[in-house]
């Protein structure tokens, strides 16, 4: 079995538990080593060496001489070799993903720490909504995690914009991996007005920039797993593939009869909101920090996330992760299921033919663990497109409808409403998502129907259904990219998935919905 683990042949060169020593110099592709060497004394011919922080008695040694398979500090897990008691810090630990990952990793034996300033709770409150799956306070969450799962998580309430506090905590914990979920993840929230747009950009871009400086100063060998989004790429109408962050070497630029390999250059980004712009800026900042300082990072371009289940969050109602349904923070599949539960027609924006990648919560956790288990090499900026499949919004809605009707006896309708966003609603889409399966051993499993079933099971509980009903007036979008302030209007009601019955209002008027 060992030979098959995706990180078996990684060496101390990848390991965050080493200090690099000896000849370390920072330069860019194309920066002259000859000039650099001239400035150094001739005794600096020594090689790069490693010093193990966990076993300092080994002294200095060649960083490529010991593989994870051979190292006693790396032990087998279902997700590859994992560093024993690996210290993982999660920024944004109170959120939908952060909390789920904290429990997931701590059950795998990681020493999990985390920070949060409860922004997500506050943003959702600000929009007048609430998580429809009730979540406990952090204090209670931590108590219950101990009581039910026997895991201890070290949490600190802090804002990552407070660099001094963040640095202090990082220096105290000395994490071997940092998972950065501490950003505002909402496109509509960033499009409300200038105040929201600038808040999102400042929080995301400056927060991440501060983190990069902090890692450079305090923990340069630690790997950074940074959450990006597939939305950074946009949906180019030429139909060119959405590569994983950078062009492969065989992508060639041809111009006037000459050709150049584009290998390793960042692909064009076409962000679709001011939030997405913040993510693109992050991409450049992380990319540069890896180049300048040999930080190590994976940028995770995540598809639309959905779902409610991992074994840990399902172990006790008090361990559940949040579940939002409002226009700003409810992701699309989650929102569809909530709508279906209360008989509110599932809403497609515009043509409803937008195609997006998606991934279930549990699958995302598996991917993150595999990334943590195979840290990037010094200076490596890697990108993965994290998704397990893709399809149109209409197909997703039809799948939710099918499961809701067949398994739960619900009558589910689908409607098309005006699209408040400025986006192509019919477009080609060819995402490349091979890195996770090929380099990290991730086995994609289409969990869509299974997970939708689980979501229905949870959301049809009386109390949760009641909480959806309470906030149903916040489901339909009101934030228009154009700046117009008005509710969207219905374009069409689709009674049966494939047998579309158009509801034409008299005199071609559209019908207002949602009230």
């Amino acid at each position, binding site marked *: 079995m060992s030979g098959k683990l995706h990180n078996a042949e990684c060496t101390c*060169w990848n390991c965050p538990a080493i200090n690099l020593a000896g*000849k*370390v*110099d920072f330069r860019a*592709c*194309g*920066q*002259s*080593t*000859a000039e650099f*060497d001239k400035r150094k004394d001739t005794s600096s*011919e020594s*090689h*790069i060496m490693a010093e193990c922080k966990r076993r300092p008695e080994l002294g200095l040694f*060649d*960083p*490529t001489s010991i593989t994870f398979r051979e190292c006693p500090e790396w032990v087998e897990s279902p997700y590859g070799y994992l560093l024993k008691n690996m210290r993982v810090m999660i920024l944004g630990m109170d959120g939908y993903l952060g909390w789920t990952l904290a429990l997931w990793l701590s059950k795998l034996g990681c020493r999990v720490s985390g920070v949060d300033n409860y922004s997500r709770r506050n943003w959702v409150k600000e929009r007048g909504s609430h998580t429809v799956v009730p979540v406990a306070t952090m204090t209670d969450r931590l108590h219950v995690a101990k009581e039910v799962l026997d895991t201890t998580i070290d949490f600190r309430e802090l804002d990552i914009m407070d660099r001094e506090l963040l640095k202090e905590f990082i220096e105290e914990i000395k994490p071997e991996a940092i998972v950065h979920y501490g950003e505002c993840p909402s496109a509509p929230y960033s499009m409300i007005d200038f105040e929201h747009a600038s808040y999102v950009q400042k929080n995301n871009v400056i927060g991440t920039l501060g983190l990069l400086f902090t890692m450079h100063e305090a923990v340069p060998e630690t790997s950074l797993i940074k959450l990006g989004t597939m939305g950074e790429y946009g949906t180019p109408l030429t139909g060119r593939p959405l590569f994983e962050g*950078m*062009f*492969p*070497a*065989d*992508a*060639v630029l041809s111009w006037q009869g000459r*050709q*150049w*390999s*584009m*290998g*390793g*250059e960042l692909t064009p980004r076409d962000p679709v909101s001011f939030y997405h712009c913040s993510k693109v800026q992050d991409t450049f900042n992380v*990319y540069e920090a*890896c*180049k300048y300082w*040999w930080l190590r990072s994976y940028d995770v371009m995540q598809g639309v996330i959905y779902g409610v289940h991992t074994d840990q969050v399902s172990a006790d109602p008090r361990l559940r992760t949040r579940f939002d349904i409002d226009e700003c923070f409810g992701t699309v599949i989650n929102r569809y299921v909530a709508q279906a539960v209360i008989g509110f027609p599932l809403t497609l924006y515009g043509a409803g033919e937008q195609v997006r990648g998606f991934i279930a919560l549990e699958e995302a956790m598996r991917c993150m663990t595999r990334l943590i288990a195979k840290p*990037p*090499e*010094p*200076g*490596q*900026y*890697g990108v993965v497109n994290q998704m397990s499949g893709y399809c149109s919004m209409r197909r997703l809605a039809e799948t939710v409808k099918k499961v809701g009707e067949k398994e739960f006896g619900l009558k589910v309708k689908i409607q098309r409403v005006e699209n408040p966003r400025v986006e192509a609603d019919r477009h080609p889409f060819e995402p490349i998502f091979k890195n996770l399966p090929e380099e990290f051993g991730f086995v994609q499993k289409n969990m869509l129907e299974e997970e939708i079933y689980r979501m229905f099971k949870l959301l049809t509980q009386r109390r949760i259904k009641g909480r959806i009903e309470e906030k149903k007036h916040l489901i339909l979008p009101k934030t228009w990219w154009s700046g117009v302030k008005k509710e969207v209007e219905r374009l069409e009601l689709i009674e049966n998935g494939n047998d579309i019955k158009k509801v034409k209002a008299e005199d071609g008027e559209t019908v207002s919905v949602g009230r």
Partner: protein
Amino acid sequence: MAKPLALADNSFENEVIASKQPVLVDFWASWCPPCKMVEPTIGELAQEISDKVKITKINVDQNPKSASDYNIMGVPTFILFKDGKEVTRRVGAQSKAQLLDMLET
């Protein structure tokens, strides 16, 4: 399955200079995205043409002597050696077609 041979400063002489077969050396670094993107191509070449050309790679940070001996100014740099002598050099990412073209010269 043939894989690119990972060289080190202390094996360069034996594996490259003394080699009877032509040798392609990929000078690379882990902080260099173009180097990373060429990796799979180098792997494919090792599988496909290693009977004709020995396909090798060397990390310039871990092996500064070789990088300095061959005056590597930027990575990735690909050098084709024949009878221990440098024949062709290309700098920057290369497509598979470009590398094959280089090996034919």
